[in-house]
């Protein structure tokens, strides 16, 4: 029987939760990574390794890895540096993507490092230099508190040389030649602020791939969908309670079904009216339905960050989201009903799920 593994990054280390394919009872382990702040933890399905992008206020940034499902851990930052003479400093390892033993690490100040030896050593892959306005990305005046730099990296499903990267507060970029060149993919997105460059200046929070051509995006201002691989975007916010949110998940077997967690905009950034709700579309964003069964509906002022929702690939997929106050909710029926599977974790940054045969 397959095992279901949840990887949870928190402000005080990484946690793992295990269940079987029924996904009803969960066993919690952790904290790992010496309780460093873990921004994102992922699992490489091919090698079985777990990686965690982390930063310590005292000891800097590193990528932790475990080759035995969390029993033992080691860490490395070898090569994760812009150099002794560079003015660019790395404040954190923000995000990860692992594929076939190759690990990509997004960092702040914005750049992507790669490891080809299972996370033992790293080298600089790209800074996306030359993109419009990139000379100003490091200006502190352009960086919000907690700036992540590269806030997400997403591989194409088939082609390892093709992936997308989000530069926080700048936009989405695509490479098809393994980061040799990049193209902004932000056409059609909304931005309610002046932008000096037509192609960039968008606040892309989360992008998920639905199928070969379709992408969904939760933006600072609105939900969007692309049916042409990110070349153009159409807003699909209508019907949602707010335009703001971070987390998003695409159904693995139905290209029209997609999940999002709208949050109050401005500085609150918690679920509206204190009612914990995941919203679902089953028609590619033409209409939206609230999913609330089993979620707290009173006094639940919960926030969910951009990497803190995941969906598995079972025939009936399970959904998972973690909150910035340490609750972890799970559904084993596509969001139809929910239960809290951990209630007292540190603030949750990321949730990923893996199915282990």
């Amino acid at each position: 029987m397959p095992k279901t593994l949840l990887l949870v990054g928190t402000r005080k280390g990484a946690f793992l939760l295990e269940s079987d394919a029924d996904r009803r009872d969960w066993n919690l382990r952790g904290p790992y990574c010496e309780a460093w702040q873990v921004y994102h933890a992922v699992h490489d399905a091919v090698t079985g390794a777990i990686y965690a992008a982390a930063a310590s206020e005292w000891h800097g940034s590193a990528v932790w890895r475990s080759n035995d499902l969390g029993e033992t851990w080691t860490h490395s930052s070898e090569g994760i540096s812009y150099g002794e003479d560079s003015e660019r400093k790395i404040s954190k390892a923000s995000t990860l993507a692992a594929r076939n033993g190759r690990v990509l690490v997004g960092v702040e100040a914005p750049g992507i490092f790669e490891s080809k030896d299972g996370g033992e050593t790293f080298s600089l892959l790209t800074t996306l230099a030359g993109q419009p306005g990139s000379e100003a990305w490091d200006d502190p005046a352009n960086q919000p508190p907690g700036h992540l730099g590269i806030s997400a990296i997403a591989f194409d499903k088939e082609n390892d040389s093709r992936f997308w990267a989000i530069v926080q507060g700048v936009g989405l970029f695509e490479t098809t030649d393994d980061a040799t060149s990049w193209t902004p993919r932000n056409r059609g997105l909304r931005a309610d602020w002046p932008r000096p460059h037509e192609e960039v200046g968008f606040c892309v929070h989360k992008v998920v791939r639905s199928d070969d051509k379709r992408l969904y995006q939760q933006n600072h201002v609105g939900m969007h969908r692309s049916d042409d691989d990110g070349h153009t975007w159409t807003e699909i916010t209508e019907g949602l309670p707010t335009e703001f949110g971070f987390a998003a998940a695409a159904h693995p077997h139905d290209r029209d079904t997609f999940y999002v967690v709208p949050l109050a905009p401005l500085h609150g950034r918690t679920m509206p009216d204190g009612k914990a709700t995941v919203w679902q579309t089953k028609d590619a964003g033409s209409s939206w339905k609230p999913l609330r069964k089993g979620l707290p509906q009173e006094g639940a002022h919960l926030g969910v960050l951009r990497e803190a929702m995941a969906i598995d690939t079972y025939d009936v997929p399970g959904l998972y989201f973690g909150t910035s106050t340490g609750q972890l909710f799970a559904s084993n029926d596509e969001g139809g009903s929910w239960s809290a599977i951990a209630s007292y974790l540190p603030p949750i940054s990321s949730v990923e799920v893996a199915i282990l045969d």
Partner: protein
Amino acid sequence: MADLHLPGTLTPLFPGLPRRLDIEAATVGGAIEELERRWPGLFDRLCEPGPSLRTHIHVYVDRERASLATPLEARSRVDVIAAISGG
């Protein structure tokens, strides 16, 4: 030999690294480089590119605040402190 004391946040990161050890070095930076030789990766945990000590890593030599360039005497006591911060 300098008498080197390390913070408790550091030792779990490197198997076999003790909280206290004797080390032969001419400067604080030299002592950390010697630690790096024995426990690869340790330099990054205490120093930033430049190099300089990380913001919240403080070093004292015989109770005086020190930098990487601070010289060590044969019987110097070196305290590496993870400064109290955060929550």
